[in-house]
């Protein structure tokens, strides 16, 4: 079998993989990056491009006071105590450096900044996600220390007698070869959103959801880690993101008019949830409704409070694409979306009445999103409905890791030589997640995994 040697083997050519590869290459390691498909980017490139950072120059420019402790507190809060606080601490302590590092390596952040799911203050930093991966990939290749193999799939991890992971078997161009890694192997191959059977095993209530993610995200990394006894976390918390139009195949990201004041109603015309919650919890809620689908209901003012530079708030752009149902009156809107008119009008009226009187509407909604923003009424036409179901963009669960991003086995022992980062890992999010923390963790933990590999002793050759 053909053998290839390197210092650091990275499985997966998405954000986590290239953040790790670049960091390790900048430290002088010889790196091989395996990408199973014909293109790099994976789920990272298909994401909404939101990264959760705190205390940045961009926030200061917008007069937003934020900090790592507040970010930590928000993340633990939104994770409902189910997250591994040591990982959240690791993220909070390293996110600001990562933001600066991304900028130094060519990643461009838009000037806009917004609050979204799970955030006490606006901290969504926006990028073109495909371009971000491309920038890191270019920077990595420019070091001269990184080799990228496309259409190359890692199949099994290789271990020495003492249990240390020293490489992987790889399928490439019809051949199976062996790649040996002197320092470490990083699993950065994403989750398993493209393996419906595996999704069904852990989250059968999401069978009717829309699934969007990198075509290579079939759980390869998880299976290879499992085979070595790796422990896993957060599998019960696989969730979809609320706000996906069920038949729109062009906008992969969700639309969250609820975070600007819209309400969510089901096909019976009734509100069914506190709309200010994490869109993951909203995803759970909508999947419990008839057909797993509902509508976001908004008026003219809310429609124009969006921001087309922010993918989840680009309402008027989607309106131009014909994705909103539009009506002059709420009565007409009820007819167009075929919900019981009397029930629907009573629900909107009760919501408006509570907001006007400073009371909590049903389900205890207090804010637009998380602890941010004042509720507004829905009363000035034209009125709009955005059909919404849940989209499973990622699996948000996986291998247990320690602060060095080392994979941990079911007995709590590190699997020497094996690192994991990005969507591969479990424990970071807990029960729900903050907007920007999934892409953020790929950048932060990918970078830390690269540094971790660089700090390791070289293994056998």
């Amino acid at each position, binding site marked *: 079998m053909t053998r290839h040697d390197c210092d650091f083997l990275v499985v997966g050519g998405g954000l986590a993989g290239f953040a790790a590869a670049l960091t390790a290459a900048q430290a002088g390691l010889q790196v091989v990056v395996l990408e199973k498909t014909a293109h790099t980017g994976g789920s990272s490139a298909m994401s909404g491009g939101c990264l959760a950072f705190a205390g940045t120059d961009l926030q200061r420019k917008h007069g937003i006071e934020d900090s790592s402790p507040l970010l930590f507190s928000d993340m633990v809060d939104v994770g409902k105590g189910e997250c591994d606080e040591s990982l959240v601490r690791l993220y909070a302590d390293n996110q600001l450096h990562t933001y600066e590092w991304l900028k130094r390596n060519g990643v461009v952040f838009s000037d806009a900044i917004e609050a979204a799911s799970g955030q006490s203050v606006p901290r969504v930093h926006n990028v073109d996600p495909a371009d971000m991966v491309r920038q890191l990939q270019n920077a990595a290749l420019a070091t001269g220390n990184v080799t990228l193999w496309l259409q190359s799939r890692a199949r099994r991890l290789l271990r020495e007698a003492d249990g240390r992971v020293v490489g992987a078997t790889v399928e490439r161009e019809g051949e199976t070869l062996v790649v040996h890694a002197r320092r470490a192997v990083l699993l950065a191959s994403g989750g398993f959103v493209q393996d419906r059977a595996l999704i069904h095993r852990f989250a059968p209530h999401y069978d009717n959801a829309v699934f969007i993610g990198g075509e290579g995200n079939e759980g390869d990394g998880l299976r290879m880690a499992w085979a070595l006894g790796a422990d896993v976390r957060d599998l019960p918390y696989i969730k979809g993101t609320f706000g996906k139009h069920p038949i729109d195949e062009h906008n992969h990201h969700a639309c969250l008019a609820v975070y600007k004041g819209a309400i969510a109603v089901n096909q019976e015309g009734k509100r069914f949830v506190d709309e200010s919650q994490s869109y993951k919890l909203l995803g759970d809620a909508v999947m419990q409704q008839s*057909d797993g689908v509902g509508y976001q209901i908004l008026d003219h003012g809310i429609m124009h409070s969006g921001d087309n530079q922010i993918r989840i708030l680009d309402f008027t752009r989607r309106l131009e694409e014909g994705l909103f149902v539009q009506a002059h009156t709420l009565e007409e809107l009820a007819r167009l*979306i075929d919900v019981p008119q009397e029930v629907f009008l009573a629900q909107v009226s009760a919501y408006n009445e509570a907001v006007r009187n400073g009371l909590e509407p049903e389900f205890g909604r207090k804010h637009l999103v998380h602890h941010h923003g004042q509720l507004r009424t829905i009363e000035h036409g034209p009125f709009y409905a955005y059909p919404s179901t849940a989209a499973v963009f990622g699996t948000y669960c996986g291998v247990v890791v320690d602060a060095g991003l080392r994979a941990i086995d079911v007995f709590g022992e590190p699997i020497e030589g094996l690192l994991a980062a990005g969507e591969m890992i479990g424990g970071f999010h807990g029960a729900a997640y903050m907007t920007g923390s999934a892409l953020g963790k790929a950048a932060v933990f990918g970078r830390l995994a690269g540094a971790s590999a660089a700090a390791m002793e070289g293994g056998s050759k």
Partner: protein
Amino acid sequence: MKILVLLAGVADMRFALHPIRLTPDAQILEEGTARRLLSPFDEAALEVALKLRDGNPDTRIDVLLLEGPNTENLLRSVAAFCPDSLQALGIQAARLWHSRESARQIGAVIDQHFPEHELVVVGRELGDLDEGSLPPLLARSLRRRQFAMAQVAQWQGDRLLLMRERGTREEWLTVDQPLLVSVTNDKRNRLRHPLMKNVMAAKRRVFTCLPVPVAVTSGPALRALEAAPVTTRGGQCQMLGGDSAHQAQALIGWLKDQGVHL
């Protein structure tokens, strides 16, 4: 009233171009993740039929969708509008450039399976490879008259009326015989939003394909496919920042730099 709607779909240009190749029997094989969506003319044809059913619940709508890339997804999107029947039509959609042959094949299907349908409704162009010749050829194949460029169809009591505009005038036809209607898109026949309960139900549907009952006759055949020349794009893209006033100012400055007199 029985209506047969014929849909084709067109390439969805928002997805990357897909590779195609020629098979040994001179058919075009579309590979990769080719995507189709309903064309504006397809949508108009479907909406015209739906409006007629709205106006008279006794109206039956049967839909045939030409087989091709992404057929199942396209069938699901049409199924969400709840036609009474919906099937794929097993014609080689990639050979629609041979309009006379395509019309002959489609006509044979309609003669065999839908001979009693008073209206055959089709967009003014049927798919990417039709430049508009297929509807009249199909009308001839079906031995029917054609009402072309229809914009509106409506009931007036028991009478069915079709309308198209010409200049400042409207032409109205009272339908008194089986007809082929080719529809152009118009704000009055923009396809409605499907109901979500129907969208979700359509996800669970299984579809069948109707085979073409006649053999393909000889005619022009493809011998080779040449790679399209790749156009190298020059210049650099520059994003204009700031508010609209700043962006306008920056654009004026850039145009002046290019020698444009403003």
